[in-house]
């Protein structure tokens, strides 16, 4: 299935949720307990899907799958379970950008028609407007506006200088406003 379903904006995992003691579960999964892996997968999937959806759009399911594969294949490298969500976020954004860029190369250019203004289907509009942005711009927008990270954190996570983050964010927001108000 390769669908992306618009839903109400899911809140980011709360501080409480992030502080949930996932340590024992992570350690069991690291030791090869597949039922623990299964349970941890349940805990991480909504978060990864929420990050991959706006960046990879129609390829969100592929990006989510690839991000989770990368997470669980490398889980043994996670030394500190308390850092789990930050570590997962970095992998999810990287995979979402990679999958979206690969998919974009296969798309015909004429797909980028702007939807009519006043379309009542706001959720669909958000996807359409996001589709006008590059995967890198979407990643910056998601990390700043959906995840609430500051520019320094976004810069570190994406591996680009802070001025580049500021430029991408400025352009993404300007583009978003322009398309949204068109």
């Amino acid at each position, binding site marked *: 299935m390769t669908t992306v379903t618009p*839903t109400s904006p899911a809140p980011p995992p709360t501080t409480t949720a992030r502080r949930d003691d996932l340590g024992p579960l992570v350690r069991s999964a690291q030791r090869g307990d*597949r039922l623990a892996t299964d349970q941890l997968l349940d805990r991480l*999937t909504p978060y990864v899907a929420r990050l991959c959806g706006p960046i990879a759009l129609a390829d*969100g399911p592929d990006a989510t799958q690839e991000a989770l594969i990368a997470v669980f294949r490398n889980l043994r490298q996670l030394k500190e379970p308390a850092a789990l969500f930050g570590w997962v976020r970095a992998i999810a954004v990287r995979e979402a950008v990679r999958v979206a860029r690969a998919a974009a190369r296969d798309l015909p250019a004429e797909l980028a028609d702007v939807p009519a203004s006043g379309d009542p289907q706001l*959720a669909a509009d*958000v996807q359409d407007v996001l589709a006008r942005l590059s995967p890198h711009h979407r990643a910056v927008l998601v990390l700043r506006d959906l995840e609430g990270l500051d520019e320094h954190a976004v810069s570190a996570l994406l591996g680009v200088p802070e001025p580049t983050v500021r430029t991408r964010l400025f352009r993404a927001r300007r583009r978003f406003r322009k398309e949204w108000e068109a």
Partner: protein
Amino acid sequence: MNDHTGGAAWPVAELDPVRRLRVLAAATPGTTYGELVIDASVDEVWTVATDLERQMPLLINDIRSFTVTSSDVTGRPVEALARSPFGLRARFDIVHREQSCVMQSRFLVGGLAATAEGHDVTRFGFFGGLRIPGVRLVDRVFHPFLHHGAVERFAAQFRP
């Protein structure tokens, strides 16, 4: 949070049961994964798939019999006893989710999932293999032994 969407929805991706199983399989060294599309509804496929006492010996060559020893309140098996052709026994813990199921014993692990792909068309996935230290090193040797042709044997049950 600085929302440019006027409070409208950010798209959220979906991970269907078969994609989810691919993640588990990819994260489990020593296992192989197979999937195919079956011309039957997801309900039909899942009803057959969850008859574990019949399906597990079909899917995993190394299992001669698979006997459910405990079920949950809805009747879904949560524990089973498997016997190998050489008489070895293994106790399996089983976890069920929406159209997916994962199980493991001390030395074996397996999982199955089904996702509707259209009207009366279902994608079925299965993975299984060893769960022992150092299995990455013997991975290729054991794959065919464990469940060669597993999904094909499963799908054959839906052909007239």
